[in-house]
């Protein structure tokens, strides 16, 4: 199958973040090399972005332009006839490439300019508008290709944004976009594709498909992430261990409980990372606060509790026995309903299965331990902030994923919170490791997870509209 390719060349001065931009667009932290110095990328390196089954977009990383002043003077020196235009100048220079070994990197860029459909010109907007940048833009204009200036580093360089915008406007470049490869905003990515759409009218449909596909992907991913968090909450709340009624046993059991809640959180963390295409090794490499798949910030450390604005005075375990009384009433109701249906035997047996453990524990003086509200509260806050951090993390990030800025006010608990916890705690069978003998059907669990995910979606929507307002 011949794929219909649309190609983009990413060019710009050295160290402006060309490779970083591509990494972020590809969601691939292993693309090319990134370093905070000039001349990191030395090849023209391409990668394909999938649009749909028949279309791809190819994006080429190029070495940084470093000596544009010299390059421009050489290009302008090319002896050409009067009617020749910029492209002829460039071609004439390329023909004489052997005369300029010192410009071999720039030469690759020029070839890339001529062979692709559209140019992204990456600008580090923290930089003043120097002669070399103006010369670069002039050289680009020779290639007579549509150009999208990408204003990079908008997080750090926002003061200088206006200057660059005016400068670009004077060169007739109005379709610029702002971006930050490290502090990622999905809307900025969409803007890049939308600008391409404006400039490449004949590729309109293909780009529309790309934009649409990206949106769907983003939403699906967010939804799946919310589902994961909801599942974590439900399972962590359902998690319980039986202890004898003495200090020693309770201490031991509560350690077990901590361990299994940690495991649950770790597993969710790994899944979230995979979902947002951050690999475990990328994390090690970039020194995220995770070690051997574990958060460096332990869920149960007092520091961490304080970080979330919660005083570490409360006992973290809670007896699950309290629920039993209520449950027995419910059991009576089920019993009555089922007796009507004629299945008394089955029901009695089912009730035994469902309540035997609790009743037995009561008689024998055991108790069940489960995570208390506060722990679950922190778990919730951490996951919410993790999700936000992952969504805003470009694949070019090399800094720590930090959750320090979260405060507990921001993570106000949803209204139905207590209801959820109560519901989950009454269904130990929802967590496989509880080894509950109770019936395995998960419809109710799925229902609760759905409720929680929906509430998460509402939270994220309100967050988005808040940031849009700012």
């Amino acid at each position: 199958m011949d794929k219909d390719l649309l190609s983009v060349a990413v060019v710009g001065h050295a160290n402006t973040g060309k490779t970083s931009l591509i990494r972020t667009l590809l969601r691939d932290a292993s693309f090319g090399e990134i370093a905070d110095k000039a001349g990191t990328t030395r090849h023209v390196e391409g990668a394909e972005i999938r649009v749909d089954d028949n279309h791809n977009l190819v994006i080429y990383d190029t070495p940084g332009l470093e000596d544009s002043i010299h390059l421009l003077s050489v290009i302008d020196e090319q002896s050409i006839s009067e009617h020749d235009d910029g492209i002829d100048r460039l071609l004439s220079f390329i023909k004489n490439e052997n005369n300029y070994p010192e410009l071999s990197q720039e030469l690759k860029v020029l070839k890339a300019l001529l062979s692709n459909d559209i140019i992204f010109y990456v600008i580090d907007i923290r930089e003043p508008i120097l002669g070399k940048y103006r010369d670069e833009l002039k050289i680009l204009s020779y290639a007579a290709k549509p150009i999208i200036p990408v204003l990079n580093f908008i997080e750090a360089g926002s003061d200088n944004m206006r200057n660059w915008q005016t400068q670009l406007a004077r060169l007739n470049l109005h379709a610029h976009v702002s971006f930050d490869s490290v502090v990622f905003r999905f809307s900025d990515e969409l803007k890049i594709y939308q600008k391409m759409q404006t400039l490449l009218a004949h590729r309109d449909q293909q780009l529309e498909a790309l934009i649409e596909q990206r949106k769907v992907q983003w939403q699906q991913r967010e939804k799946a992430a919310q589902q994961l968090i909801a599942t974590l909450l439900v399972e962590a709340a359902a998690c319980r261990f039986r202890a004898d009624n003495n200090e020693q046993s309770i201490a031991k059991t509560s350690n077990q409980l901590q361990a299994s809640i940690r495991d649950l959180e770790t597993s969710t963390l790994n899944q979230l990372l995979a979902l947002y295409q951050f690999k475990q090794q990328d994390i090690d490499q970039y020194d995220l606060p995770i070690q051997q798949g574990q958060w460096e910030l332990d869920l149960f450390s007092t520091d961490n509790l304080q970080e979330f604005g919660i005083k570490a005075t409360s006992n973290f375990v809670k007896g699950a026995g309290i629920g039993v009384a209520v449950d027995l009433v419910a059991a009576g109701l089920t019993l009555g309903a089922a007796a009507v249906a004629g299945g008394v035997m089955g029901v009695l047996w089912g009730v035994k299965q469902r309540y035997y453990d609790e009743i037995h524990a009561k008689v024998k003086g055991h108790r069940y331990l489960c995570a208390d509200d506060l722990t679950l509260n922190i778990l919730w806050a951490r996951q919410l902030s993790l999700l936000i951090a992952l969504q805003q993390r470009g694949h070019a990030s090399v800094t720590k994923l930090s959750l320090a800025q979260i405060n507990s006010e921001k993570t106000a608990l949803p209204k139905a919170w207590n209801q959820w916890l109560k519901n989950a705690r009454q269904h130990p069978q929802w967590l496989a490791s509880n080894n509950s003998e109770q019936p395995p059907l998960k419809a109710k669990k799925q229902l609760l997870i759905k409720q929680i995910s929906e509430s998460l979606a509402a939270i994220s929507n309100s967050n988005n509209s808040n940031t849009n307002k700012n």
Partner: protein
Amino acid sequence: MDLYQNRLLTEGIRIIEKPSPSNRFNADYSTLNLTDALSKRTQLADLRYQVSPVLLHLQQLLKFSIGLICVIFLIVGASSVSQFLVNESGTQINFFWAIVLFIAPNILSLIIWSIVYFKRHVLSLPWLANLLLSMLTLVDKLQHKVTTKHIHYIDLFQYYFEHKFGAYMGRVQLSMISHLWWSCYLLGATLSLFLVLATHQVDFIWQTTILSEDTFLKLTQWLTYLPNLLAINVPTPSDVSHASIGIVNPLQVAQEIRISWSNLLIFSLIVYALLPRIILMLVFYQGIKQKKKNFQLDLSDAYYIQLKNILHPIGKASFISDADQHKANPNNHQGKETSQYNQSLVMPENAYPIAIELNQRILQQADKHVLKHYSVDLINVLDNASQQAALSALKSSAAEHVILYVDVNRVPDRGWLSFAKKCQYKSNVQLYLLLFGEQSANKAKIASRLEDWVEIAAKVNISSQYISYLNQSVTPSNIHQEVKNG
């Protein structure tokens, strides 16, 4: 393998791989659409995980268990006839008692079933599922001869059970099973009734203590309505009155009446009990088929989204299209020792200072520095024009030394290098590098930049003794003082 089996298999593999799909099963998925890619991966993964034998076993287990109970019900149905209908002497059947025995419980259970079926949540009563589960487990234990079970057997079992009896097709499945079992029971009863009637001579009677004859007449009229339409020989109202105890008919008539009663009994059993059950059973059987056909994977599940990322990644493997000819980047093996510079650099005489891309603040500092030592105007090189100006001024000064003022925070590039080379306008010119920095800036970053500068300076023969780093703290008071001093 049909689509349903394939999807079920994909789900089975999901259960095994949970929580994240493995990326071991590589193939060229990019040319396939998602459905095909998924099914191809499923096949590859199944070779490794061996899920399909387990699923096959589970499917057979379910069929076997259901079939076993069918047989049991058939036997129960058959035996119920001889037990309940034929009294000790074996010559009389209480007709209405027979009807009540067979049809009433059936109708009652149909009513219960329809309530349960149309009230969604009742059927998910955990106990029902639990009962079924333990039955399946029991049968499995009895039947399972293989000692080495698949390591994920339990998980797969649970999944399969959930799939069959859970929210998606549980209602249809359970309905089908219950109608099937009832059909078996009624079939058994009908068959054995045939047998009884074929081998025994019985008289049909009715008995009552509190009901009137009218009731039985009415009932018979209802029951005979359909058979009459079909012209089947059934008892007439007068036969009903005669069937009361104690009335003896002539032989010939009696035989005809027996046949008509037994016709009615068998007809009622088949048409009013067995047939509806079989029809319902078939309807739900079709329902199951439909459900299987419409069975979709939940592609919004986190697992499948991860899998999609693997099968159809946003960015495909990269390729180098214009490789670097000059291999072995010399930058890679740079010295590990901290970058050296000369803190007490003595400014040479007969030197010409040039500033390169300095910002306003640092340019002021550089200006001050130049004023202290030399009596020329510092040119700040920002573009081609200023480069040319600086170079021609340099040439006309005929200086032996050139001092380059730069901002340590800037990234040195080949543009700088080529300009520095041009500054060596004659062979014996020595370049000096004066780096300006601000103390407040990020230390680690400055250190690495300093390294870059020292490295690039070496390329134009500026060894560390000709490099100095002026680390100005730019607090306002400091500037103020300098202004006073100057």
